[in-house]
C-alpha cells in the first residue's frame, strides 16, 4: 500500500507541477461554466414567465436546472478523459522510467493502482470544482441536496470507469497523442453506441443500450440510485484495470 501511495504521490505532483492539471481543470470549468450560465439564463426566463402567469408553485430547480446540467457535464467529461489519462503510462514508457519502475521491487498492481489513482484524483478534483456552481443554486434557490449528491456520485463512478479505460489505452503506447486519440475513440464509442441502440433491433438494441456509458448515468442525474448502474461502472473499472495489468505484463514479453 505504501508503494501505491508513493507512485500516486509522484504522479499527482507531476500533474500539478506542470500546466497539465490547470489547463485540464480550467478548460473543463470554462466549458461547463458556459453551459451552466446558458441553462441558468433560460431557467430564469421560464421562472419569470411562470411568475407572470401567477403560478404560485416555483419551478423545480433539480429537474429543470441541475439534471440537464449534470447530463451535459457527463458528456463534456467524455472529451476531457483523454487529456487526463494520456500521460499516465505513455510518458513513462517513452522516457524509460517504466524500466525503473519495472526493475524496482514493486508489483505490477502497485504500479497500475498508483497511476490509476493519480489520474482519478485529477478527475475528482476537476469534478468537485464544478460543485461551486451548485453552491450558487443553494444560496439563491432551494434545490434538494440528495439528488445533487447522487448525481455527483454518478459522475465519480462513471469517471472511474473512463479513467481506467484511458489508463489501459495509455499503457498500450509510448506516444501520448496516440493514447489521447485512442481514449477519445473509446469514450466516443461508449457514448455513441447508445444512439445505435434505438435502431439495432430487439436483440442488439438492449445490449448496445446496456454498454452505453451515458445511459447508465441518466438515473443518477435524476437523483435515482440504482445498484445495477453501480455494478456496471465498478465492473467496467475492474475490467479495464485488469486489461492494463495484462498490457503491462505482456509488454515485458514483447520487450
Amino acid at each position, binding site marked *: 500500500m505504501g508503494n501505491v501511495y508513493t*507512485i500516486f504521490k509522484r504522479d499527482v505532483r507531476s500533474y500539478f507541477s506542470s500546466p497539465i492539471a490547470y489547463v485540464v481543470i480550467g478548460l473543463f470549468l470554462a466549458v461547463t461554466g458556459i453551459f451552466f450560465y446558458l441553462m441558468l439564463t433560460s431557467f430564469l426566463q421560464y421562472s419569470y414567465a411562470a411568475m407572470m402567469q401567477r403560478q404560485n408553485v416555483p419551478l423545480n430547480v433539480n429537474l429543470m436546472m441541475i439534471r440537464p446540467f449534470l447530463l451535459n457535464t457527463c458528456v463534456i467529461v467524455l472529451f476531457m478523459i483523454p487529456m487526463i489519462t494520456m500521460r499516465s503510462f505513455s510518458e513513462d514508457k517513452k522516457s*524509460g522510467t517504466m524500466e525503473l*519502475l519495472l526493475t524496482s*521491487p514493486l508489483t505490477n498492481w502497485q504500479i497500475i493502482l498508483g497511476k490509476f489513482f493519480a489520474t482519478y484524483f485529477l478527475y475528482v478534483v476537476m469534478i468537485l470544482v464544478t460543485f461551486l456552481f451548485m453552491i450558487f443554486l443553494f444560496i439563491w434557490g432551494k434545490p434538494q441536496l440528495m439528488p445533487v449528491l447522487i448525481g455527483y456520485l454518478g459522475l465519480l463512478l462513471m469517471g472511474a470507469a473512463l479513467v481506467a479505460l484511458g489508463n489501459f489505452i495509455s499503457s498500450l503506447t509510448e506516444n501520448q497523442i496516440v493514447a489521447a486519440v485512442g481514449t477519445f475513440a473509446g469514450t466516443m464509442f461508449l457514448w455513441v453506441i447508445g444512439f445505435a441502440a434505438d435502431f439495432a433491433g430487439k436483440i442488439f438494441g438492449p445490449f448496445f443500450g446496456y454498454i452505453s456509458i451515458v445511459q447508465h448515468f441518466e438515473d443518477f442525474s435524476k437523483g435515482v440510485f440504482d445498484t445495477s448502474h453501480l455494478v456496471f461502472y465498478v465492473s467496467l473499472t475492474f475490467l479495464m484495470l485488469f486489461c492494463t495489468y495484462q498490457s503491462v505484463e505482456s509488454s515485458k514479453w514483447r520487450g
Partner: protein
Amino acid sequence: MIEVKNLVKHYGSVRAVDDISFTVEKGEILGFLGPNAAGKTTTMRIITGFMPASSGTVTVAGFDVFDQGIEVKKRIGYLPENPPLYADMRVVDYLRFVAAIKGVDKNTIDVEVHRVAERMSINDVLEKHISKLSKGYKQRVGFAQALLNNPPVLVLDEPTVGLDPKQIIEVRELIKSLAHEHTVILSTHILPEVSMTCSRVVIINDGKVVAMDTPDNLTARLKGSESILLEVEGAIQDVQNELEKTPNVLSVAIQPLAIPETAQYVVESTVGFDIRKELAARIVKNGWGLLEMKTSGLSLEEIFLRLTTKEEEVN
C-alpha cells in the same frame, strides 16, 4: 552471486540471446563486451527482471529472477542505457522517490539520498530540475539512483556513455572502488574501459559468448604467435634472407620505407621463444643499422575484432 544458465531470448524469429551461460562471483567486476546489437542490453534486462527469458535461468544471490522477482530486484541497482529520469522533477525529489520505491526506510531516506549524492558528486545540483541538467549530470543522477539502498549487485549498461574524458575517468575509478562491497556487471563497447576496470571479460557477438576470461589471459591466449617489428638499414634482400635464417622465425613481412636501403620488417616467431637478442646480434654482425625494435602484442582491440569477425566467417 549471479548465475546465468543457458539463457535464450527470442524476439519473434530473431535470437537476440543464444544460450549464454556465465557466473559472477561476489566482489567481481564483469565486463560485457560486444558490438552494438550483440545482446548485451537484452541479457542485462533479463538479469534485472525487466523482461523474462525465453528459456534458461538466472539466479541472483540464490533467488530465481523469474519466480522470486521482487527478492532479486531488492538486491540489484540498475542503470539502463538511457538513465531513467523524470525530467520534470528536482534531482532531490527524484532520488527520494526512487529511494522510497526501493524500500529505503522513511526516516533514513534523506541520509541515503545525500550519501549517494556525495558519492556521485551531484550535491550542487540537488535542487535543480532534471530537465535542466547536462548529459553528464543526467548520467550521474542515473548512476546515483542505482546506488540507492546500497544493493549488493550493480548492473550498469554503458555507464560512461555521454561523459567527458575527465568524468569517464572518475566513473571508472568509482566503479573500481565499488567492487569491494558490490558485485558489478557492466556493458560497454569501449575496449580500454574493460581492460582498465574489469576483473573478467565476457565477449558476446550475435547473442553468443565468444570468449570469457580475464583481460590478461584473453590477450595471452589469443597470441598464437609473437611478432616483432624491426626497422633496419641495409640491403633489403640480404636482410630478409638473414632474418629468415634465424631459428624459430615463422615468417618475415617487409614494408619498404621512403629512405633507400631501409625497411620495416614484421617477424613472426614461435610462441615462447624470445628471439630479439638473436636478431639484434645478426643485424649488428652484418654491419646493418638497427633503427628500431619492438614486440607488438595484440591489443584487446585486435582480439575483439578477431573474435567477432571470426564468428562471421563461420556463418
